[in-house]
């Protein structure tokens, strides 16, 4: 899952990026409302973590602009103001969830997973396809009832394919999901992860569409 983080405090932004990264989420961080709007205009995120007090205004303005464009990307407000009226104001402005500072990193990750799950209209917390079952909370993969150990990055690639079975994901898309903006993309890594996944789950689980990318094979 790819998250846009809008937070102007560098220490907190760095902590959230590292922490959510450990939970298997990819975080792109910006520090101002203007940058957030630019990022949201150009890219698709699974969810947005939005600080209310930004150096160039209120996060509520960013939220309002986003909703005005009929963009339904789930938004979690992150703010020092967590009195009930503030929460109500935030939720009524179009936010999907609210978390007061300081917060628990695991709770933030869980709430984001829930937001994304609700956003795509999935009832189960597990991602399933055929004999495959992915648990985004535990970053664990089950194949026909047997646990298959995978790395965080492998899980990210697999979950992206399982989210939309049969849809082709380009290498660029997968790389973006894996690294976000802040990380240096290592060459050929996507191929390496796909290779590893095939070795663990079977040759024919992931199909290579030459020149376009990869897709999960839909069982006949």
């Amino acid at each position, binding site marked *: 899952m790819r998250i846009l983080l809008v937070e102007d405090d560098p220490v907190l932004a760095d*902590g959230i990026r590292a922490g959510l990264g450990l939970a298997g989420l990819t975080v792109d961080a910006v520090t101002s409302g203007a940058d957030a709007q630019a990022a949201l205009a150009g890219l698709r995120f699974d969810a947005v973590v939005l600080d209310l007090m930004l150096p160039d205004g209120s996060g509520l303005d960013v939220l309002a602009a986003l909703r005005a464009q009929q963009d339904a990307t789930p938004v979690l407000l992150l703010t020092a103001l967590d009195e009930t009226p503030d929460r109500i104001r935030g939720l009524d402005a179009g936010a999907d969830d609210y978390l007061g500072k300081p*917060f628990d*990193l695991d709770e933030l990750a869980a709430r984001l997973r829930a937001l994304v799950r609700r956003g795509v209209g999935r009832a189960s917390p597990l991602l399933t396809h055929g004999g495959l079952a992915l648990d985004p909370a535990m970053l664990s993969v089950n194949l026909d009832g047997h646990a298959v150990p995978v790395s965080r990055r492998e899980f990210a690639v697999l979950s992206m394919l399982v989210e939309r079975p049969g849809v082709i994901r380009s290498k660029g898309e997968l790389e973006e999901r894996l690294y976000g903006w802040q990380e240096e993309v290592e060459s050929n890594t996507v191929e390496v992860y796909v290779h590893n996944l095939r070795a663990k789950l079977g040759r024919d689980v992931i199909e290579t569409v030459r020149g376009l990318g990869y897709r999960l094979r839909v069982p006949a």
Partner: protein
Amino acid sequence: MSSLRRRLFLILLAATGLIWLCAVAWISMGSRSELEHVLDTRLKEAARMVHSLVMAGDPVQGAEKSAQKPAKDPPVQPRDLADAVPSEPGGYERQLSCQIWSFDGRLLARSSGAPDAVLAEEREGFADREVGGETWRVYTIVDPEKNVRVVVGDRIGLRDRLVRDLVAGLAAPALLAMPLLGLLIWWSLGRGLRPLNRAAEQIAAREGEDMRPIPPDGAPDEIQPLITALNGLFAKVEAARAHERDVTAFAAHELRTPLAGLKTQAQVALAAGETGVRENALRQILVSVDRSTRLVRQLLALARLDAGAPVDTRDVSIGALIRDMVAAVPHPPEVITVIDPDLDPMVRQLDPDTLTLLLRNLQENAVQNMTAGTIRWRGEGAGRLVVEDEGPGIPAEELGLVRQRFYRGRMTTAAGSGLGLAIADAAARRLGAQLDIANRTDRPGVRASVDFGSGSWSASAPIR
């Protein structure tokens, strides 16, 4: 007197009473003069009438005749002339008295009730006479042909009574009407003041949190200024509360964000398997602790300034103090601070700690807003200390806000807490100085000046 209604009631009643009193005085004076005129005319006519009767009647004995045979004739009994005088109805009967005197001083005739004493004057016309303790108004006709003086008079006292009765006749109903009028005024005031009561009820019915302006429509013109003033007050209270809320919000943000950062980084450090991630998290924790330490220091400084701790005033060398302060403030190597040597001999009686606090926060603010350039400290005119930086300056619309606590402008870096200029301002006020923050006019940058008041620098040594 707290009740406007009672106050107006008394004023109106007193005013009405006063006008009535004036009216009574005017009427009584006017009727008196009118009455005098009428009664005088009556006196004159009565005298003429009697005189004509005397002419038409028995030949009047001449003065000589009377003098010649006073013994023969029985003493002339004064004839009663009452019938000749028109009598007044009621209590004003026998108002007029008439006497006919011969020239030799005999009373030839008199009306009933007329005094025996001489009313007549030597000369013809009106006169006032004191007879038997009463003042009479008399008219005398002197007829040398018939040797008679005809005199008609009335008592002034009676005239006064007439006027008194007239005024009393007017005043009595007025006095009776007074309570009725009072009731009417009281009721009318109640009706007239109803819009005021409505406005008061409207305000009284408000929630304590309701700071919306009172709609001025429908209120009478007289209470418009009150409503305008109230609305002004509401706006001020609302602004103060909004400001309070802002400060609370900013403070919450500034205090909780570093805590959130610390907690998050600590959780990352605990959860991270990779050494690199853990070490980075621990380094971020150190950064955050340093920033929080600075924030706490600033909050304590503000609290001390707010508490008005006692100041230790002594001679302070401005130049030396700035040099020490600048050396203590960390800054990137690209930022250079220049201190005008003219400041070196400047000495002033000040609290050095508060002054250091003031100047250090100005210096820190300048350093934070610059990546490279020169910060310049210099004296200006009498008692003004100026520091100029070469940063981007402050947007004009934020100039009035930068001294607010926790206010962070758009151009500020993440390192600022929004307290620096608030502390500088509080410290300046504590020193009795005036802090001005403005943009430089010669180039982008901020110019902060501290005005200590004129004639305040003293040179400890001759200036170069």
